[in-house]
Every structure is written in structure tokens, then in C-alpha cells.
């Protein structure tokens, strides 16, 4: 869809609007045409907002001027169907809107539609969606990743200028990496969860999926901040994240992680090349060691299944939604495993042990951040996998997200930026950058410098 209005970035869109070179209605029309042309194949959207054009008109005087954005379908939108890709919520029309959506809409954004995900955000492929999988727009024989696969695919295919996703362990960064876009997972507690359908409450973090690091930074400005309705949000001051753009990374100390662990063969050399780029930009990059992510898989699996079994207990079909017979296989499996690990006689063995190991990871990263300003690794150990691979793989998501789970269970902020594209398959590899708690500014600074120094970003040279 190159050279059409829908392929503009958020920054370019606002710039052109300001100069009166274009009108938002033209952008909206271009995005809608793009959806019409592609989404019968890609299947990024579950529901489209019929009231879009009216919303755009009503918001044209606001800072975002009616900007069309895609919203992951586990985020409540008043009067607009919200399913979490589960038949349990097939006809659910939320009576209220999530804080993050409220905030971006008050700034002038409009919702184009709700994007597909793994049911209840359980997975890393969109293949557990009860409405069918999304395909990777870069190569439709492959998966977009997940769980925010619909949001990442929508952005990658220019079916949305930006999108909102949620991450519990990899669900923003991994699909961003697989679709060749930018995904930013904020510090846990930086962005409100109010109105986000709860999955694992102690790690759920909503964030932007965007075409460029600049766009992600701009979106985070709107999403971040304490919320009266979510007491886990932090009173930490929110900086202007766009101030981190265009800053030198000279002298920053960067630790390179996980290159020597098993399973990194496909991506290793490309991550080494990315590290060299950072070195050329003046950063001091060196390989370093952290606790094995194999343990993070276990911590995450136990904590997540436990929190899932508790959070999904509310779906009884009484106040809203269908009854529990409508759960898909993956949700059943996770609810039951969580019930098991929390049940009498097993809670200490599994849940308490996992929570203690979680402390070890926090301590391990604290120590690493005494020495390094940030840490980098591959986002995923592979390119986007082929459709169908998740069948009969109970641990598919956890193993795919192995490199991201340590930063998820510790609550750290991270970003994935494209750092390689395979010329044969058109598929991408992402570079994951993480920083200490509340230092999204630093991951943005480094990701932006990397993006500007390389040619992997598809939107970089357009117009």
C-alpha cells in the first residue's frame, strides 16, 4: 500500500494535517480502503466501528484530529463489541470504555475497529482465537505472532496508522517483531489496566504498536499515567517521551543477552550485527549473562496460569457473556493448570516457589542495571512461524516468548524494533531493548537511534 495516505506514519499524518496538505477524512478513507482490500485475507479485525466517520468529524479540532487507530479486542469499548476473541463474550457490548481508550479518544483518536488476538490473550500466534487466526501481512503463509497479532498485522498492512495492544509476556513485542513493526511494552503500572479484560493481573501491560519508534513514543504520551480506577498504576511522573528522540547514545553501556543459549542459531548473527550498529553509534556493548530464561518460562507459566484461573472464574454467564461451556481448549487448559497449581498441597510447591524465583529475577536485573544502562537481545528466537504450528503444543507461547518473559515477570519496560528482513521470505527479526523500571525514555532513545541508523524500518523512506 506504499505511497498511499494509509501508509503515512502518525508523525507524518499530524505534520501534513497541520500544514493543511491533507484532511483527516482522506486518511480515514484510505485506511478503510486498505482494510477492504486486504482484511478478507489477513483477518486482523473482528469488529469494525460503524460510527467511525461521525467520530472523526466530532474530533477534528482535537490534537489527534480524528486519527483512526485499531484497538485489541480484549480492551473494553462502550457499545462496541468486545470479545477477547472468545465465544464466551461473543455478543458482549461493554457498558464502559477502558481508561486508555478514553484517553486517546479524548485526545482526538477514533477507533477503526477491534483486532484479533489469541483468545483471552492466551498465546503467541492468534491461532487460539475462536474467530480464526490472523495471517502475517508480510508473508501470508506465516503467523503474525500474538497475542496482539491483529494489532501488529493491522499496522504492518497499513490498515491502521497505529494500534493499541496488551502484553503479559511478549504479546506486544513478539507480534511486532514477527510483523516488522515497533512494539513498546511499558513498565508494569505505567499504563492503566482499567477496562482491559484481565488475564494475568500482575504482569498485564497495555502499550502501543506503531510504524516507527517516534510514533510509539507519541502514543505512549497519551496512554501513560496514574489512573484513579486502577490502583496498581504508579504516581511516578510521566515525562514527554518524544524528548528521547534524536538523542545521542554515545557512552551508554549496553549488555547483550542470551546469544549463547540453545535455540538462537537463526537470529544470532543478526543480533550481533545490531549490536555492532549500536557500537558504531558510540554505545559500549558487551555480552553479559543473566539468569537462564528457562526459569522465567516456569515462573511465568505458574504465575500466569494461577492468575488466569482466578480472573476467568468470573465468567459464569450470569451478568454478561455465555456460560463456561463456551471456553476454547487453550483457556480450559490454562484455567485448569492454574487451578491445579493453586490447589491444596500444590500451592507451596508451585505458586510460592514461582513467586520466590520471581524475586531472583528482579535481583538479577537490578544487579545488571548497576552495570548497564540497558540490555538487548533478540525479541524472538525465530522468524514468524508457519500457520498451524501451534496445534498440540501446550507450551508454544511460553517457549516462543522465552526471551521476553524475564522482563515481563520483573515488570521492566521493553521495545522491539525491526533489525533484519529476510529478502527471500520477507519476514523480520526484532531487536528487544529493555531498561530499568520507569525508563521507557531510555528504550525509546536507543531504539530511535538504532532505527535511524539502519534501513529495516519499512516506513522510513516513504515521503
Amino acid at each position, binding site marked *: 500500500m506504499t505511497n498511499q495516505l494509509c501508509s503515512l506514519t502518525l508523525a507524518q499524518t499530524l505534520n501534513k494535517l497541520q500544514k493543511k496538505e491533507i484532511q483527516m477524512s482522506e486518511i480515514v478513507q484510505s485506511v478503510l480502503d486498505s482494510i477492504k482490500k486486504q482484511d478478507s485475507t489477513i483477518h486482523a479485525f473482528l469488529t469494525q466501528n460503524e460510527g467511525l466517520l461521525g467520530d472523526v468529524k466530532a474530533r477534528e479540532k482535537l490534537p489527534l484530529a480524528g486519527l483512526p487507530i485499531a484497538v485489541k479486542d480484549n480492551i473494553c469499548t462502550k457499545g462496541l463489541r468486545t470479545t477477547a476473541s472468545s465465544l464466551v463474550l461473543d455478543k458482549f457490548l461493554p457498558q464502559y470504555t477502558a481508561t486508555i481508550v478514553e484517553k486517546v479518544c479524548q485526545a482526538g483518536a477514533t477507533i477503526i475497529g477491534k483486532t484479533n488476538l489469541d483468545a483471552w490473550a492466551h498465546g503467541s500466534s492468534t491461532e487460539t482465537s475462536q474467530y480464526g487466526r490472523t495471517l502475517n501481512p508480510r508473508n501470508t503463509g506465516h503467523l503474525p505472532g500474538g497475542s496482539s497479532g491483529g494489532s501488529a498485522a493491522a499496522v504492518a498492512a497499513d490498515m491502521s496508522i497505529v494500534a493499541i495492544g496488551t502484553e503479559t509476556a511478549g504479546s506486544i513485542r513478539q507480534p511486532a517483531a514477527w510483523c516488522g513493526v515497533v512494539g513498546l511494552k511499558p513498565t508494569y503500572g505505567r499504563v492503566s489496566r482499567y477496562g482491559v479484560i484481565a488475564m494475568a493481573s500482575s504482569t498485564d501491560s497495555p502499550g502501543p504498536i506503531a510504524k516507527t519508534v517516534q510514533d510509539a513514543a507519541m502514543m505512549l504520551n497519551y496512554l501513560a499515567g496514574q489512573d484513579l480506577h486502577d490502583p496498581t498504576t504508579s504516581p511516578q511522573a510521566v515525562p514527554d517521551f518524544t524528548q528521547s528522540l534524536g538523542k545521542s547514545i554515545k557512552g551508554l553501556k549496553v549488555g547483550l543477552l542470551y546469544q549463547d543459549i540453545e535455540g538462537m542459531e537463526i537470529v544470532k548473527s543478526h543480533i550481533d550485527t545490531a549490536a555492532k550498529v549500536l557500537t558504531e553509534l558510540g554505545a559500549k556493548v558487551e555480552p553479559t549473562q543473566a539468569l537462564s530464561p528457562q526459569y522465567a518460562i516456569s515462573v511465568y507459566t505458574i504465575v500466569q496460569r494461577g492468575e488466569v484461573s482466578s480472573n476467568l472464574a468470573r465468567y459464569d454467564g450470569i451478568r454478561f457473556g455465555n456460560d463456561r461451556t463456551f471456553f476454547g481448549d487453550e483457556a480450559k487448559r490454562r484455567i485448569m493448570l492454574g487451578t491445579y497449581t493453586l490447589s491444596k498441597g500444590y500451592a507451596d510447591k508451585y505458586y510460592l516457589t514461582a513467586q520466590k524465583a520471581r*524475586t531472583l529475577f528482579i535481583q538479577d536485573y537490578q544487579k545488571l542495571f548497576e552495570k548497564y544502562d540497558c540490555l538487548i537481545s533478540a525479541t524472538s528466537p525465530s522468524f514468524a512461524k508457519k500457520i498451524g504450528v501451534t496445534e498440540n503444543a501446550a507450551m508454544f507461547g511460553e517457549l516462543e516468548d522465552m526471551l521476553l518473559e524475564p522482563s515481563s515477570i520483573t515488570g521492566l519496560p521493553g521495545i522491539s524494533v525491526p533489525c533484519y528482513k529476510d529478502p527471500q521470505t520477507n519476514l523480520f527479526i526484532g531487536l528487544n531493548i529493555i531498561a530499568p523500571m520507569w525508563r521507557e525514555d531510555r528504550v525509546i532513545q536507543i531504539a530511535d537511534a538504532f532505527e535511524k541508523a539502519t534501513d529495516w524500518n519499512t516506513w522510513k523512506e516513504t515521503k
Partner: protein
Amino acid sequence: MKNTVTKTQVTHVAQLASLTITEQEAEHLVGAFDETLAVIDNLSQLSLNETEPTSQVTGLENITRADEVLTDNMFSQQEALANAKRSYDGYFVVDRIIDND
């Protein structure tokens, strides 16, 4: 020692979680449980006796707000019932769970 579950255990867990599963599903779930338990078993290699558990990462404590009614997130009765499959005279309708006698 390898951690495994039996079909009886799986069926019991389903009951606890208020899920209905078929015989075939139960058999399948035994395999899925074993696969997952085999992965998470590695935590026994860590020495954790001296380590405190973490349940949340931000360290926030005693977060309170002014004791005022927030009207912006209140539902009217009609809104509250809007998504219910069964309602009667302003109430949610639920199945009987206590026997008559």
C-alpha cells in the same frame, strides 16, 4: 521425581474450575498437564530458601483515594442488566444451586 497427573486428578480439577470436559478431553489434558509440569519442574534446581516471594513488582502500598462517589463509573440498573441473558423485574436470574430440602 517426575511430576505426572492422572485422569482422575484432571477430572477433579475440572470440577473445581467449574468446567465440563469430555472423557476424550480429560485424556488429552493429562498429556498437556504432564508436558507443562515437565517444563516448570526446573525451579527445583534453584536455591530459594532465603528468598522472599514477589507478588507485585511496583512496590506500591496502601493506595487509597478520597472517599467520594465516582459517578463516572457507575452503572444504571438498566446498564448493569444490559448484557445479562436472563433478567426479571430488575434482577439477574440465576440457576438454583441449593436443593429444596
